[in-house]
């Protein structure tokens, strides 16, 4: 429990900043929805023609075409909050949270103090990962739920269950980045090494996402606009979503955590 408290104290400022940033981006996106809608409707076809990816073409086409406004709003929220906001701010926060604990402590030497206490390494890792996971996903759920409350300001509405599905999906994705960062933190000795490695990995994944032929193998294919466009309006049953996508994300997260745990047990941490 003492490690949980300590980790939360160390990470609460970053978590608060992350929550504020997500909220601000979401708020700005939602209040500018009417303006955006007009622009999209007028220029939808043009954007659709020049959009670099199929998913973006599809988005512009969906909005520009004479579809129901509700679907357009859901698509707008999907791209603004889940595709853009969480994919950028969430991933950056996952890396900062991941490097700010184990790697930082190893670098400054305080990990020697912690690992020489009568507490198992498993408990240390469980405590740290648990706190970081909550720091990362609670703001996602808070802001995603807030959409249902904020949408009526623009005269729109979105079903809560669709937003929950989106929040679960994006949480599982950013958790993957967090666990990958923790794995690198155990493997490497300095924050710079960890940040460089995870940064290179993310940049490579983003890079191949924009190459049509290999996009399907990019990790970001899991969280592109197409992944959210059906989820957010609430048109997909969760059991279908769970067995088609979320189960694999959960298994990948578990596998990464187990790999980190095994490495953490064996590693010399002095």
């Amino acid at each position, binding site marked *: 429990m003492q490690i949980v408290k300590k980790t939360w104290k160390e990470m609460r400022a970053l978590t608060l900043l992350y929550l504020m940033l997500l909220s601000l981006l979401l708020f700005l996106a939602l209040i500018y929805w009417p303006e955006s809608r007009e622009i999209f409707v007028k220029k939808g076809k043009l954007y659709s023609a020049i959009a670099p990816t199929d998913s973006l073409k599809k988005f512009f086409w969906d909005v520009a075409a004479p579809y129901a406004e509700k679907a357009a709003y859901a698509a707008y929220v999907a791209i603004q909050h889940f595709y853009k906001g969480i994919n950028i701010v969430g991933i950056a926060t996952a890396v900062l949270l991941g490097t700010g604990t184990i790697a930082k402590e190893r670098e400054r030497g*305080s990990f020697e*103090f912690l690992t020489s206490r009568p507490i198992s390494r498993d408990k240390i890792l469980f405590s740290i990962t648990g706190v970081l996971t909550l720091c990362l996903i609670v703001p996602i759920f808070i802001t995603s739920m807030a959409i249902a409350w904020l949408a009526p300001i623009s005269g729109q509405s979105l079903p809560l269950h669709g937003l929950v599905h989106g929040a679960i999906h994006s949480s599982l994705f950013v958790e993957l980045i967090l666990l990958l960062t923790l794995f690198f933190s155990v493997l490497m000795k300095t924050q710079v090494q960890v940040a460089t490695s995870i940064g290179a990995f993310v940049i490579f994944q983003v890079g191949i996402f924009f190459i049509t032929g290999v996009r399907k193998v990019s990790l970001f294919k899991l969280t592109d606009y197409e992944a959210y466009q059906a989820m957010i309006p609430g048109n997909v049953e969760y059991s279908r979503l769970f067995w088609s996508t979320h189960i694999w994300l959960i298994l990948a997260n578990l596998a990464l955590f187990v790999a980190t745990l095994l490495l953490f047990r064996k590693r*010399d941490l002095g």
Partner: protein
Amino acid sequence: MSPPSLEVRGLRKTFAGQEVLCGVDFEVREGEILGLVGPNGAGKTTLLRCLVSILHRNAGSIRIGSIDATRDPVGARRLCSYLPGETSLYDHMRGSEMLEFASSFYEGVDPEIARLAAEAFPLPLDQKIKHYSAGMKQKVALRIALSAPTPLFLIDEPDRALDKSSRQALYRLLLVLKSRGRSILISSHHLAELTEVADRCIYLVHGRIASEEQVQAAQDRLSLVLRARLPGQVEELSLPPGVRILEHPPELHLEADRIEDMNQAMEVLLALHPSSIEYGRPSLQEIYDELFQGAVD
């Protein structure tokens, strides 16, 4: 006879193919202060880190009290308090928070020792640790390590960054712990002070503990040096042929290869009524230097 507080047998540790500890054997008895001596890079810190399982051993066994530390490292750590060589605390915590955080891993603190440690190492506990000097940080680390209610203490260079009075307070506190039956393994470079508190010392040479025979041989070699202050000038000294004069009277400094020669020289000198004569056991520093001739420092 009670079992040792710490028993290490055949401990080996390799880093990137290089063996740092090559089969270390020793034990710390109950209520004993054991000094661990060796030059920089000898493996003292590696040894202590292996004892608390921060580093994993390649071979050998470690027993703390009745617990096999290699099988139950958490149980073993409950019986020992470790002071890392490089003080690294949480800078964002206040001194009082750091003490509370550290004590929460054990069943509280030994109240009497905590009181004595607070007197020995007074600190502004309401300040954040990032505002502390190196010496103050070391005092926090010492208060944490020495107040733990454990039967064994593993202390790596506790006198680092401490002034002389704090060092003396530290060694007094170690003697209090010893008087209460606690066992202490202490690594230090302040050999003169270590000599005063340690019941015995072990010497880590090239990853191995020097055997008693090696230490005895070093002591014997060092025993053949004699210093004496003679009153006035001495015209001629009739010393045995095996004795060499390194410095002439009145500050006489002799060296010999055989103990018999030096004993004869001693008889000659005693007849001259020297005002002082030094011909005793070599100091820890001298044994250390003798054992580590040629070693990295």
